[in-house]
């Protein structure tokens, strides 16, 4: 299923949460949708899942608008960080309801994950701990087998081991049955290796859409004396510089050609840091590979 976002805007009174965002997602991949708080990530995901209506512009899934569109919505599953399920229902009822809605529901996987996460299926959602409620969301998201599965901070309260289990299972499922997975999280370092493509939103605008591999290859930092660094960064896309005494570090986006001829210390920039640098106010964005 392909997603086409066409000049999508969403305003709440005077606030522009999304401002004429346009991009396209064609292949089933694991996408990282990143950005700071209030960047518009959740709003975009809600519009994509048919929960919200845009103020202007549109999202198309296979050329159809998802809002109130049964044939599209049964292939989109959005799991948010909380309030996904009616707290009065039992876990078994939640699973049964979702199994009826999603045509590709994997019952066996759901049962396996329920056992893995030790979820009490007779318990009501309101009786679950924060972590267990998140585990329920993760189970539903994975077992839905929806062509477009969206995870918006799905693991609040899950401990490191449970999160690791989720990443492993996500990859396993994705390899077995490739689908579009859109992942939004603030724990970027933990999941960045899963991403195949990264989209970064800032203040309601898309500032970057690029293959994760390309970002890993082209985002780097150089550290050395101020003179050396300043000489090297001439005509390069510098995201940020830091200086301590006569030592300087510059975060650069682009080719590393020529760096080997210098005495500069070169390091890769993790995607999390890259997102932070790119979304800092005042950073020039014209050069970005969007």
């Amino acid at each position: 299923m392909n997603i086409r976002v066409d000049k999508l805007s969403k305003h709440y009174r005077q606030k522009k949460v999304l401002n004429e965002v346009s991009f396209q997602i064609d292949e089933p991949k694991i996408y990282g949708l990143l950005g700071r708080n209030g960047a518009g990530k959740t709003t975009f995901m809600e519009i994509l899942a048919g929960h919200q209506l845009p103020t202007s512009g549109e999202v198309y899934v296979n050329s159809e608008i998802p809002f109130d569109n049964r044939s599209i919505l049964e292939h989109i599953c959005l799991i948010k960080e909380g309030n996904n399920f009616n707290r009065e229902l039992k876990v078994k009822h939640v699973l049964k309801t979702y199994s009826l809605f999603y045509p590709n529901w994997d019952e066996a996987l759901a049962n396996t994950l329920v056992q893995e996460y030790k979820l009490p299926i007779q318990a009501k959602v309101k009786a679950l701990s924060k972590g267990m409620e998140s585990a329920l969301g993760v189970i539903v998201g994975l077992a839905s087998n929806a062509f477009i599965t969206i995870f918006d901070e799905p693991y609040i309260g899950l401990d490191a081991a449970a999160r690791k289990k989720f990443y492993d299972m996500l990859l396993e499922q994705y390899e077995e049955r490739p689908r579009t997975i859109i992942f939004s999280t603030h724990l970027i370092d933990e999941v960045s290796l899963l991403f195949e493509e990264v989209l970064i939103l800032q203040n309601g605008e898309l500032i970057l859409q690029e293959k994760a591999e390309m970002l890993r290859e082209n985002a780097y930092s150089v550290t050395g004396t101020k003179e050396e660094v300043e000489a090297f960064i001439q005509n390069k896309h510098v995201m940020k510089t830091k200086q301590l005494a006569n030592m300087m570090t510059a975060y650069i986006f682009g080719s590393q050609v020529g760096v080997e001829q210098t005495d500069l210390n070169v390091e890769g920039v993790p995607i999390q840091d890259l997102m932070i640098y790119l979304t800092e106010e005042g950073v020039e964005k014209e050069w970005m590979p969007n």
Partner: protein
Amino acid sequence: MDAQLKGSFYYVLTNTKRPFTIFWIILGGFMFLSYGMSYLFVGSETVVSYDLSFPIYIFGAVLGFNFVKNCIPYLIRIGSSRTNIFLVTGLSLIVLSILNGLVANTLYGLMNKISGEVFQGIFTIQTGNESYSFTHISDLIMENTWFNRVVIDTSIGFFLLASFFLLGLIFYRYGYIGGFGTLGLLLTLMVFGIAKEWLIDFLKYIFTDFHFTFFYQLFLTGIVIYLISYLLMRRLTID
């Protein structure tokens, strides 16, 4: 049946089963208690009375209002279309009001049969030598049969369910300002209607020639109110 419709029905049923069961356990419990208490007063002038109809009207109103926040956002979240939700909710409200009417009046009839007494009414009006006992709204049309009682309770129950569902939807969509604004507007209309007498004339018109068909009309009015709710549901969004 279409899988999504089935899923929506399953969700609504699971969600409604609990309040429905709790309501009837408590109401049934109180009914048995009333019967028990009535034996304590045998031979005295004290009469213990109970009624199942008015509680189901109140239950209908509360359930209709709560239906909006307990069902609609979650059904949208799962991916149900608004039209499906509208169909499933409408059918569920009708079934629920019929079920309430059936349970209330069957239980009432059964208890009267078991105890061997005909219930004496929830209140009595005494004028000179004349006395009139009021048990149920069907007394107003002097045809207090099991069927009539079921129809009356179903129609009033559904009317209240639909009306409060619509009110709940207004609150959900437009917040306190929209909800209380609507209530204020209705109240103003009522005061205006009384002042201009057209509301009194309308009530006189209904109750002077009060007939059983009124309850069928009330049921239809409930359906019209429910149909209006689609206008609000069609473009409903959730956070």
